[in-house]
């Protein structure tokens, strides 16, 4: 059993715990590499099936190729896809020019609130990882959120011996993070090993640019890279880790504690 097997087995264990313990469970699918391997891991955990509905929060500012990819694989893999939008904010003309954090909060966080309320989800599976940025390093596998979706990072439940928080008060919900312990490199190594079809925005264009992290078109930048396929990305990450993964994500750079503030208020 190698390190990837270890990671995979642990994630499958967590997905099964989530599926068993939560009646109304959903998985967030951002179309990015992380949540796509999550879909793959679910199919491993449930022997070819994905019994958990997939929620995609559409800000309408997503890169168009992402929507095509989403619809193609949702059909091909027989996924139960639920698309959520904060229509009210969009009608009122919300966009990143009103402030990146304001926009993220309205279209992503509030968009998520709406869809969770509508479907009554009590558990939400997300593909965040500890190595992404400092705030996420503090997360638990099973992380409670109160009725206002807020994360009390000062008072988190203990997690030991794979016993997770699976009981909670009525007006709270749980965020579940099955790939919390993976690194960016692990994710790409796994994509390579499993031959998981991944959206080609991650691969370098002839001009030597690629996305390292995907988000809304106006706020997501590319990095300089010549990695044209998964093998080359793995090589790039192994030997050239000079910048952080989310360096292309504008909202993180807004101010020192941007991510912490966003997450405490329910951002993914």
């Amino acid at each position, binding site marked *: *059993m*190698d*390190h990837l*097997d*270890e990671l*995979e*087995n*642990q994630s*499958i*264990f967590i997905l*099964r*715990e989530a*599926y*068993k313990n939560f009646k109304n469970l959903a998985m967030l699918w951002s179309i990015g590499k992380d949540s796509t391997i999550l879909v*793959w891991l679910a*199919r*491993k*955990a*449930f*022997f*070819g*099936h994905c*019994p958990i509905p997939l929620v995609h929060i559409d800000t309408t500012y997503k890169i168009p190729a992402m929507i095509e990819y989403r619809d193609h694989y949702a059909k091909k893999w027989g996924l139960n896809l639920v698309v959520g939008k904060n229509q009210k904010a969009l009608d009122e003309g919300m966009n990143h020019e009103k402030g990146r954090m304001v926009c993220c909060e309205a279209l992503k966080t509030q968009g998520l609130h709406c869809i969770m309320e509508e479907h009554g989800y009590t558990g939400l599976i997300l593909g965040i990882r*500890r*190595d992404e*940025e*400092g*705030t996420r*390093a*503090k997360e*638990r596998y099973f992380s409670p959120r109160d009725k206002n979706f807020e994360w009390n*990072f*000062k008072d*988190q*439940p*203990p*997690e*030991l*011996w794979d*016993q997770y*928080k699976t*009981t*909670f*008060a009525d007006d709270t919900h749980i965020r579940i993070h099955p790939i919390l*312990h993976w*690194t960016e490199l692990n994710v790409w190594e796994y994509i390579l090993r*499993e031959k998981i079809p991944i959206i080609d925005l991650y691969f370098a264009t002839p001009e030597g640019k690629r996305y390292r992290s995907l988000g809304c078109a106006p706020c997501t930048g590319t990095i300089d890279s010549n990695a044209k396929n998964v093998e080359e990305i793995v090589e790039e990450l192994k030997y050239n*880790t*000079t*910048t*952080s993964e989310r360096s292309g994500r504008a909202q993180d750079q807004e101010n*020192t*504690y941007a991510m*912490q503030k966003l997450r405490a208020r329910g951002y993914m």
Partner: protein
Amino acid sequence: MGNNGDAQELASRLMRMVIVGHVDHGKSTLVGRLLSDTGSLPEGKLDFVKDICNQQGKDFEFAFLLDALQEEQEQGITIDTSQIFFHTPKRKYVIIDAPGHKEFLKNMVTGAADAEAALLLIDAKEGVQEQSRRHGYILKLLGLTQVAVVINKMDLVGYDEKVYSKIKTEYSKFLESLGVEAREFIPVSAKLGVNIAALKDEMPWYKGPTVLNMLDQFEKKPRPDHLPFRFPVQDVYKFDERRIIAGRVESGKLKVGDRVIFSPSSKQAVVKTIEAWSVPEQPNAATSSESIGFTLDEQIFVERGDVCTLMDELPIVSTTFDANVFWMGKRNLEKGRKFTIKLNTQEVECEVHEFKKAIDASTLETLSNQDYIAKNDVAELTLKTRSPVAFDLFGSIASTGRFVLVDEYDVCGGGIITTYSPITKEDKLRDEVRTRDFNWIKSDIKPEERAYRNGHRAVLILITGEPLSGKGPLARTLEYSLFQNNFQSYLLDRRNVNLGVSADLSESTVEDESARRLGEVAKLFLDAGHVVISTSNAFHKEVQEDLRLLANPYQVIEIQVASQPTGEPDIILSLDEAQDTKIASTKIQDFLKEKKILMGHNYSI
């Protein structure tokens, strides 16, 4: 794979480390220094943190690298556990920076619970403090005994060997009282990078390894493949035509064709397939740490919480056991209140039966005559669960010998099972049965061979019901009918057992002991391969439970004759149906055929 291959494989795996110790003894600084000195920091990270320090008008410190949360920096303490990856030329590490403040014990526990080795930090100037001892104790309780002590801030005491020796003597003594031996005491200055990556000149009297050298000397825990097979059932899936039992192998190995038994129910079946999706080839075996799923050759009722093992390596099943527990709850752990125990995938209500010893974990003082423990303290106690749970002693199989306690919605305590001595009558009997089974001298003739010769597997058919419901005549007809069909049937009448085997029992002691003897006689007939038929009064639920326990590991089929059935019998017959003993007997035999207990002669198995 040869030994060499194993060693390589172990070395290539990620090493999980935890750094613990009293608040402000320099854990975050050490981690920051390790990251920096091994070249494991992403470019720009250092500058980013330096910028923040400038913004806040503070001097740069390595600890800030880790303190990603605003509040943390304001208070200057690590609130939660951070996981940081770094590497030495030998291998990769993930280091868990656990908080040292007393209030955050649960975070320290979270960090330390799945680490394989620990560094315990002590401030040279402050010496051994409350959390130094508490964390030492918790590490021991978590089964983490690969520990090195790092004596930090030596620069503040002039790199004085006497200071080092005093702390080393004091803390060694403490660890010794726990039965733990530190691998090394390393004097360092994390802030100035002394003895972290390289031995510097400041302390020529110290000849031991640097912190990095020490880390590389720690051993990876081998996977528990050599231990008995343990598979706590996580879930049962029926997404398609397959009925898959899903879970994780906690220890040992399983292969297709193994006969397995589920505890506490004692149901058995044979593993038909091991299922997997999108793999190069379908597996036919599984080992520890693998999250797997398998199908069985017959449809027995299995549910989450059952522990699947091989036939000759059963876990302990009991409602009482002794444990060492640490408590992190806001409310006390006390007698008379109900908690939920989560032991692998089992979840049962429980309570403290007895506090043997309540201990202040920071001083190791016994809190005498105390029937509770408060937050941050530990205890040796006896727990009692509402229904039987399957487990092992922590010392024999760690992953099935530990548990957490849930108070209302929250995990508030953790514990390891140290010893087991039965307290209730049921536990005592179960224990006797297990001792019997472990020491049973097995015949050279395998049960499968007897089954092949007899055309059936051994089984105890228990006909239950109210007095005068016609159980007796039905049992006689069934015995005769099976015999006519060339099966080895025997009607074991309790009255006959009482006439001989139990003739010495007085009226007052008769019930329990005569039931036990009836069960043991039945077990002998089962061992000889027979279909044993017996009857039991519906009022004697306890007798029936005893018989089931004693017949273990053989199957028990209950036929209940009743107008209003109780429990979970395999077949229910109305009083009218039982009257016509021939039809009823045929119905029972059809059921036994369906369950593949009656297989017919020359049936290939």
